[in-house]
């Protein structure tokens, strides 16, 4: 069965690009969120297999949100997205339980490569 994904990013542009890349490869994007509150609300409704989490969000510290997601849906895989130069945050995210990370710029190969490495 196709895996379901939720995209968390405050940029409409980024969410669209990611959605395009994922849907092309058969992933089902079940939800998008632009804020922490929206994320937590949609998380419970959609229970996605994978959550792509941009780690700079305006309305919550990203790592707090990461923790809340993992507590709420421990069986899902969280993949954090970040820019180059944010290695320390990535490190902490992985310690907190993120399964993988993707560094921007996004390319289809990179994004799909990381998601496939998670395993079904």
């Amino acid at each position: 069965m196709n895996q379901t994904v939720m995209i968390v990013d405050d940029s409409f542009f980024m969410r669209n690009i990611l959605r395009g890349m994922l849907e092309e490869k058969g992933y089902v994007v079940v939800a998008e969120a632009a804020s922490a509150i929206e994320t937590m609300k949609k998380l419970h409704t959609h229970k996605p297999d994978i959550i792509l989490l941009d780690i700079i969000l305006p309305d919550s510290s990203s790592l707090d949100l990461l923790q809340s997601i993992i507590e709420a849906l421990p069986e899902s895989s969280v993949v954090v997205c970040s820019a180059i130069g944010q290695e320390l945050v990535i490190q902490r995210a992985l310690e907190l339980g993120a399964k993988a990370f993707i560094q921007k710029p996004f390319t289809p190969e990179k994004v799909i490569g990381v998601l496939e490495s998670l395993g079904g």
Partner: protein
Amino acid sequence: MGMSQYRDLFVSEARGHLSLFNELIVQLEDAGGDNVTIDELFRHAHSLKGMAATMGYDPITALAHVVEDQMTRVRSGELSLTPTLADLLLESADTLSEMVSQVESGSESIKEATPLLERLSLFSPETKKGESQEKPDANSSGQQPSAPHSFRQADSFKSIRIRTETLDRLVNITGELITNRYRLVDCSKQSGVVDFDNPIQQLTGLLRDLRDEVFKARMLPFDFIAERFPRLVRDLARKQGKEISLHLAGRDIELDRGILEGIAEPLVHILRNAVDHGMETPDERVAAGKPSNGEITLTVTRVKDHVDIVIEDDGCGMDPGHLKAKAVEKGVISPEQADAMTPQELFMMVCTPGFSTAETVSDVSGRGVGMDAVRTAVHSLGGVLAIQSKFGLGSRFTMRLPITVSIINALLVKTGTFDIAFPINSVKRTFELKSSEIIEENKQQSILVEESYVPVRSLNSALGQSFKPDSDLTLIPAILCEAGGSPVVFLVDRVCGQQEIFVRPLGLPLSRLRGINGATVTGDGRVVFIADAASLA
């Protein structure tokens, strides 16, 4: 997968980041550093960088990256936001905007901004904060709890983009429908068939709803044009070594797109004047016992069916004596006329074409188009401009504008062979007077209204028609108008009543006529000209 389909999205989102970035820099400079604002700035640069990188727009990525780096240093306290650094960051935002425009225009490659890139990345402050030795650390976002923040409105499928021409056409059609309704009412009255009343009543209600909806669709918040004002004032002030902060209030008040378009440049002109001529240098201000930092406030308020825009500064104000001397010297008015003028009228003299009192014309307000263009623009929108000033204390410019431009409430009057409509905004009241009430002094006619003398004009002679005074006994209908901030009474032949009219602009050569700035067609097919009270006075 192709990225080109995301280009429009990139452009609009990038623009959003850059305009907020601009605004925040100016805000930060005005209010001093607070971490929430610095975080916000960082985030805008960071988001733009990520977006550009994903699209493969390397010059944008590179410049945004350096901006982000410098914001990180500001956040860590290693750098403080000096005016020089602010200049550089604003310049970078400008360059980034240009790059985004290149993307929008579909150009193959984006021009690199290497010199700026180097200047910004090599920027080091003259005074460093001693203790701050730590490396600029990109991860601090994870440690600093950012303040609660309402997230930006994401684009949504509930709204669509629509061409402004389409909206204009909708307004035109609505206007025609309203005119047609009046025609229909006239026909039904003449035919004497009673059955029309009910459907016409319904039609009236529906037309009102349609008009409201169409106009709502054309409304934009004032911020749409005001967004760039803080930056404008800041740059001008800095260029002249002045310290000025601009306070905006009422930015979310909505106005018709056409009106916003029409007042954008006039507002810029008034702001430029305020910085250029109104505001003193910090030294002059201190010598005059004022705080060195000057203040300009731009306040938008909605009052019933119009909007007031007030630009007020605490600068040096205008000297009525100086204006008087200048006007006489330029031959605009005679010394006798000058002596009879109120300060209010003298201030309005700055709107006379070619009248400029600036001792030295700076490069900032070169004044090819001056205050006369401002007044013309306001009048052509059916608005009124008033100027108040206290010498030594500052000036205040008030624009009173209708909220929508094309359909206005007007008072219809008859004078000679003409039907004339006065926008209701400019009419204070109507009354009747006897010609014996008119006082004539120095060939100036006036009457006493509420204990002050108000000049009287015959609308007939103002429009170049002959004026025959009636006998002392007849009551002459009159309307009291507001013309450029001072009252004036127009004598007319008949006041016909109030009506909603659809304003059409006049074409050449009629548009050259003084005192008229549009026309409308009534229900029975007559052409009614729309009066510009200020230029008729």
